[in-house]
């Protein structure tokens, strides 16, 4: 033991030296430097994930913008279609209305014409009776026989009839 150099106080001295060395290193080197290294790692990790997040955000906002654009385009198309359809409908309804109006107008005009004609015919017939009587008076005054008289009246009536029909 002695030849080898084993010595109890020395052993204890080495143990104490080692423990003190470890304590000092722990307090002034390991702890602060490991803390700083961890902090840096954390910081870098954070930076990386922030960059990743920003990239993702940019990508997603790009997609959102694209989507919005598409939406707007679709909306515009829809509005355009709607307007076109509305104008089409409006035009058709207007045309229909115009046609109906025109028809109504024509109808009324026709009815007016008919009424005018009927009135004219009535007038005519009335005046024709007068005319016939006048003619008859004139004929009578000219002394006519009975037969001629009859024929004349019939003829006049037939003429009047055909007149009414025509």
């Amino acid at each position, binding site marked *: *033991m*002695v*030849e*080898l*150099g*084993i*010595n*109890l*106080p*020395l*052993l204890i*001295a*080495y*143990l104490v*030296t*080692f423990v*003190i*060395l*470890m304590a*000092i*290193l*722990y307090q*002034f*080197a*390991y702890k*602060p*430097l*490991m*803390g*700083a*290294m961890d*902090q*840096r790692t954390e*910081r870098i990790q954070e930076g990386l994930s922030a960059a990743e997040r920003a990239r993702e955000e940019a990508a997603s906002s790009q997609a959102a913008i694209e989507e919005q654009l598409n939406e707007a385009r679709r909306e515009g198309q829809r509005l355009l279609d709607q307007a076109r359809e509305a104008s089409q409908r409006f035009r058709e309804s207007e045309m229909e209305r115009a046609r109906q109006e025109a028809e109504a107008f024509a109808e009324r005009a026709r009815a007016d014409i008919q009424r005018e004609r009927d009135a004219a015919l009535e007038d005519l017939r009335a005046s024709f009776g007068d005319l016939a009587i006048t003619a008859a008076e004139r004929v009578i005054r000219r002394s006519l026989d009975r037969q001629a008289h009859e024929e004349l009246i019939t003829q006049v009536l037939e003429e009047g009839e055909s007149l009414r029909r025509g």
Partner: protein
Amino acid sequence: MPSGAAAKRVMLLAGLVMVALLIAGFVVGAIGSQMFGTTRFLAQPAIHLPPQPIFPFSAVKTSLGYGSDYEAKKEEAKETADAEHPPAAESGDHGEGGEEEHHFTPLGVSQFAITNTLLSAWVASLVIILFFVLGARKKAMVPGRFQSLVESIFEGVLSFGSSVLGRDMARRTFPVVATIFFFVLFNAWIALFLVPLYQAVGFGSGGLWDFELKAHLIRPAGTDVNMPLALALVSFVFVEYWGIRTLGLGYFKKFFAFGNLLRGRPSGLIDIFVGILELISELVRIVSFTFRLFGNMTAGEILVVMITFLVPFVANIFVFGLELLVGLIQAVIFAGLTLVFLSLAVHHEEH
């Protein structure tokens, strides 16, 4: 390119000086002095396994054999050496010369003195503290060069631990494992970086010119068996502590495996035997830890001293390179084995 040419010239000059020193070293070294009969540059070194005390001086005197009768003894030794000069020179290679000159009394088991190994352990600890505390002082978010160096060393040790234990455990055991690593490493290297101090300064006898070094002021702490033993105890206690902390009292089941026998299975006898083996291997780790480091460091020191003795001046540069590597390897092994034993202690129940 004048600077390139100048650099080349300087290199050539340095190489020539190295070769000259090598040849001179060979001539005045132990081998050359035998071959050419030149005077030896260095005295034959004495190898002591126990560390030499350097403080207090009374302990130095006792251990080196100084005393009231020391001078007389020295004179006597000189006379014998003079008288037996030719045979002494002849037997120098066999390590017998100067045996009486190097009588050295090691410290008793419980006798305390500050030894050269303890001093160099303190110097190494101081260097470690300076290095790492300065490196960690600023804690800058964007580290400078020095902080980067220290951080990359930490990161290296931490990733080494992670490869064995996993990140979480490696972090929690980092202070102990890293301190073991740095302590072993710096203690192995401190003597190499303090070569002039290590090789030339210490207690001895004689004047400035015929100085005979008997006790180095600095001697790598790994060559003192107490330092590896202390580290081995730290490692052992640490491993057992983690084993108990993780597995509770169940940790002792692998040493005292009575479970199967108590249930009446005869295979329990084997378990008990395995448990005894586990216990022995657990305790033997302390010894193997101690003597692995002690042996490597001591062998390195002896190699450096012997090469310096055989061929002084520059030949030991290669040994220094080797010793740098050995120091690093021993540090890695000490820390690595601690990690491995930790992982064995912590994960024992799982397989």
